[in-house]
Structures are given as structure tokens and as C-alpha cells.
């Protein structure tokens, strides 16, 4: 299972293609992509880049439970949450606060 990740053009923040076709900062809201959908979903990313919404879209491997979605690689886990050495920064900071 995969999700489509990218950086938002104007501020570089990591975002994911959501189930409703918009871009979300929360991986839990991301659209899960099956092997068969990969090419079509990547094309959505290319179009979003052309439309100046995001940059550098690519598919990220995730492990998906009933309510959780978690990247399988450390790199993507850090990208999703924030630096492991600064828990006050990145998504992990406001997830923790909320």
C-alpha cells in the first residue's frame, strides 16, 4: 500500500493526496493507493505540480491499519512527523499539543 507525498509549493510543507483529491498535511487522511492505481495517482501528482500546488510528488510505502497509516521507511516517518531531535518542530509538535 502507498500514499502520494509531495511538498506544498509555497511553503515546502509535506502534504499527502487525500481521499477527496485535495492535499492534506495529515497522512491519516491520505488516499491509499493500490498497485493498480499507482500510475494514475502519480499522474495526479504531476498535474498538481503543473498547477503550482505541490512539488516533487512521489509514492511512499505505508503500513495501513483500520485507523492508522504509517510510513514503513524511517525517512518517510521523519518526513511525516518532523526531526527526531526536535520534537517541538514539524507535525509531531502540534499533534502532540492537540
Amino acid at each position, binding site marked *: 500500500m502507498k500514499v502520494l507525498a509531495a511538498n506544498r509549493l509555497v511553503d515546502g510543507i509535506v502534504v499527502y493526496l487525500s481521499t477527496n483529491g485535495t492535499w492534506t498535511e495529515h497522512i491519516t487522511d491520505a488516499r491509499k493507493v493500490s498497485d493498480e492505481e499507482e500510475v494514475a495517482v502519480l499522474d495526479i501528482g504531476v498535474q498538481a505540480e503543473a498547477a*503550482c500546488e505541490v512539488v516533487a510528488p512521489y509514492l511512499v510505502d505505508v503500513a495501513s491499519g483500520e485507523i492508522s497509516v504509517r510510513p514503513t521507511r524511517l525517512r518517510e516517518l*521523519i518526513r511525516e512527523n518532523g526531526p527526531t531531535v526536535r520534537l517541538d*518542530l514539524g507535525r509531531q509538535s502540534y499533534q502532540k499539543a492537540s
Partner: protein
Amino acid sequence: MYVYDTYDKTLINQRVAEFRGQVARRVNGELTEDQFKPLRLLNGLYLQLHAYMLRVCIPYGVLSSHQMRKLAHVARRYDKGYGHFTTRQNIQFNWSKLEETPDILYELAEVDLHAIQTSGNVIRNTTSDHFAGVSNDEVEDPRPYCEIIRQWSTLHPEFSFLPRKFKIAVTGSEHDRAAVKFHDIGLRLKKGANGNIGFEVLVGGGQGRTPVVAITIRNFLPKQQLLSYLEAILRVYNRHGRRDNIYKARIKILVRDLGGCEFAKQVEDEWRHARKTNANVSFEEEERIRAFFVPPPYHAIETPVVSFQKACSEDVSFRNWVLTNTYDHKIPGYAIVTISLKPHGGIPGDMADDQMDIVADLAQAYSFGEIRVTHKQNLVLAHIRQEDLFVLWQKLVEHGMGTANVGLATDIIACPGLDYCGLATARSIPIAQRISERFNDRDRLNDIGKISINISGCINACGHHHAGNIGILGVDKRGNEAYQITLGGRSDEHAAIGQIVGPGFSEERVVDAVENVVEAYIENREGKETFIETFDRTGLDPFKEKLYGTL
């Protein structure tokens, strides 16, 4: 320090305006990302793991208090309240927004700072000895030549599309604090046979996936001929450097493939033409630039300074700091101070905005308003009166910058690694933090003595692991972080590339492995040998035995 003239100011202001337009065109879709990416890189703007990262140039590591306050402002207003000083004497802001970058660059330009040529296949920021102009062992101050190179290399039309990035370092001392042998071109000021001063010219050094110690291609270059000779080197590289393979595009590969003698011959042949052009600066221009680097108005101070000696004898913490973080100054009664940006368990090179403001104030009050950034990710206040040292130290301690560890086991160099960098394959900072915590004992640090530990989070070697007495390279091993240890690296005048000690270690075990290496040193050292002296005598064997058991 050098003050920008109308030409410099016009250039960077025009560049800000140009980039503002480019950003606007990218955001409104006139430019595609493929078209825009090389433009943003020309302005030091990278896309990293979490956001855009802006790398700001600090020419040869020299900053004014005024400039440091502006960096603090940028960190506070546009970023997340901190900056990261790099092994290239620059600073990086990790959370820049594309839309705000032109405003950041506009504000930086107000204090003569910019991000030009901090990325791309161009001549990057020329680096130098952080003790330039104040150390006892200097032949001549290298900073005027760094400034001449800066002016010559900025937007140089012939060298704006090199096969790969290009780094030049200049030192004025026999004892090399600028790591000139690990640069594409290293320049060492020296006295010639007739007493004239010139440069030893080294080429082909570098780290990355193919570490190489530079070779000397000219023992003595009259200093007036500097630019024409650099032009000849760059021209040979630009003509023959490989553009078909990014991993073989650095000048070190060309020097290796041609052979040092042939490369030197081609440079000399080219130089015969180049020196006839007007590339070299005139005597008048050299003197004009040199005038910006005249020593500040030092006081005549009677030595020994009694109040300083008294404070040293009465306060053991202060004495420890003086022993590790200060260095002899060429002027009696003064000292060079290194501010450690490696608090125990902290992030190497990171500095909070309020700390930047404090250092700016301290530099203004005690060091003629000048600050230097070192390639070891620390700061230097180069002109401190010995009688001011105690007060300065107290203020540094009060603001978390009084760590007494320069040159010791916790003064670790580390790249941002996988916590920030899009290229990294493993984390560097947490390893540095754990090593720092492991050795955080004053008696133990003193017992271990001088040692360098360098950590890189990938083969690109931004943490200079090849040059560390203990080098640690993080790699991805089937989805897990693993760390390869090298021993015996050094970046001084006896530059050497560290040797791989054996199989790598997991993230959990690497700090134990480093501790074992240090214990092997302590068990095998003779007399007052430093780590590197013991290693040079014994080689890898006792360290291998300690790490892996029987040989």
C-alpha cells in the same frame, strides 16, 4: 572586515529583485518546477525533507555583530527560531517558505549578506582559517586573498557552469586550521626562498564518496599571480572535467585520471596564456582590499594580566574553559575565544535566535564587533582582552554557550543527517548527542584529551567523517540505520583519510563501539600521546581487536 561597495550592493540588490520576480513567476505558473529549480538553487534555496532550506553565505566565515543580529531576526521572523552553522562556515535556515524567501534575501541584503553561489556547479564560498589575522603562527593574513577570490569568482561568466561544485580554502599558517588539503583548491601562504610571500597551490582534495588528499602542483606562486593561476586551473578543469557522470565530475577525479604531473603541466601551459591577460588584481586594488583587514585598535596591555590569572586560580570551571576554549593571540594581553556550539547532548552547530543576539552583543562589547564561524561548527571571538575573559565566560554560561569542550570528545562535527536532509541515508545528530552524553564527564574528557569525532549521514560526507580521528558514516542497510567507523582521519597539515576499521554497527551499538575505540586508545597510548598519535603508531590492530575480538 570587508565592507561592500556600490558594486557589491547593486549586485545583491539586483539579485534579490530578480529572484523575487522568478518566485512570482513560479507561483503563478509561468515557470515550471524544472525551469525554476536551477534558479532557486542559484540563490541557495534547497527543498529538503520537511521544507525549503535557505543556505546563507558567510564569506570566509566572518560576520559583524550587525549581520549576526540580522541572522537572529531572520531565524525569529521567518524560520523556527534557530539556524544551523555548517562545516562550510555558512548558516542554514531549515524552515523557509518559498513565498517569503525574497523578503528574507531583501533583509539580508540590507546588511550585505546573500545566498549567491551557496549551491550549484560554481565556485562556492571560499573558506579560511578562523584564526586568520590573530594567530601567532601566521605568515600573512589570508582574508584579503579570500576577498579577492570572492570578488573574482562571484558570477564569473566563464566559471558559472562548471562540471561540478568547486571549493577553495586559504590558510596563512603552517598549522592548517582550514583543511586546505580537502578542497578542490587549497592555498597556503608561505615565505619563498627570497623572503617574498606567495602560495603553495594544492589541487584535487575532497571528501564525498571518493576521498582524496590534495596534491601540490606548485610549490611557490607569487601572490600577485593568484587569480591568473586560479583561472588556469579552473580552465583546465572546465575543459576536461567530466560532465557525463556526476560521481566523476569533481576535479579530484580529473587530477587522478590525468595524473598529478600531467594536470600540473596542463595548468602551467594554460597559465602562460592566462597570466598575460588582466586577470590579476593590481597592486592598488590589492592594497585597497587589504586596508579592510588591518588589525583593530588593540590596547597596549601590561602582562601578565593579574585579574585574569586570579580568576583562573579561583574558579576551576573558568580555568577549564580557558584551557580548552581560548587560544594564544599575537597581541600580548589578548586571547582568541572559541564559543562551543556543542552543548553536552545538544545539536552540533545549532544556535537559537536569542543566542545569536547575545553573541552579537558580546562581540560588540568585547571583540570589535566581529564574529567568525568555524568549519568545525563553532564560533570565534578573535580579539578578547584577557581581563574581559571572566565576564565574557559568565555571560556565555548564562546563555548556554559556555561549554568547555573545544577539541575534546564532545566537540563533535555532525551534518544535519536524516533528521533534515533529503540526501541522507541515516541520522547523524542523535548519534552525536548520545556520544556527547556518554563522554560528558570533565575528568574523562580531560583524560581522553584532543580528539575529533565527525559524523556524516550519507556518503556525501558533509560531516567530514573521512577527516575525523574517529569518523562515523551512516548508511541504510536493508531499511535500518547502520554506521561504519573509520579511524585515523585528520584535516590539518598532516591530512589523512580515515581507514575503515571493520564491519559497521547498528544504531543501538555504534555509541558503545565509539567508547570501545576510545578505551583502546587509552589502553595503548604511551606517555602523553593524543589519540591520533597513538593511532599513527599502532595502526588499526588494537582498535580492531577491541571492537571485534581476536584478529
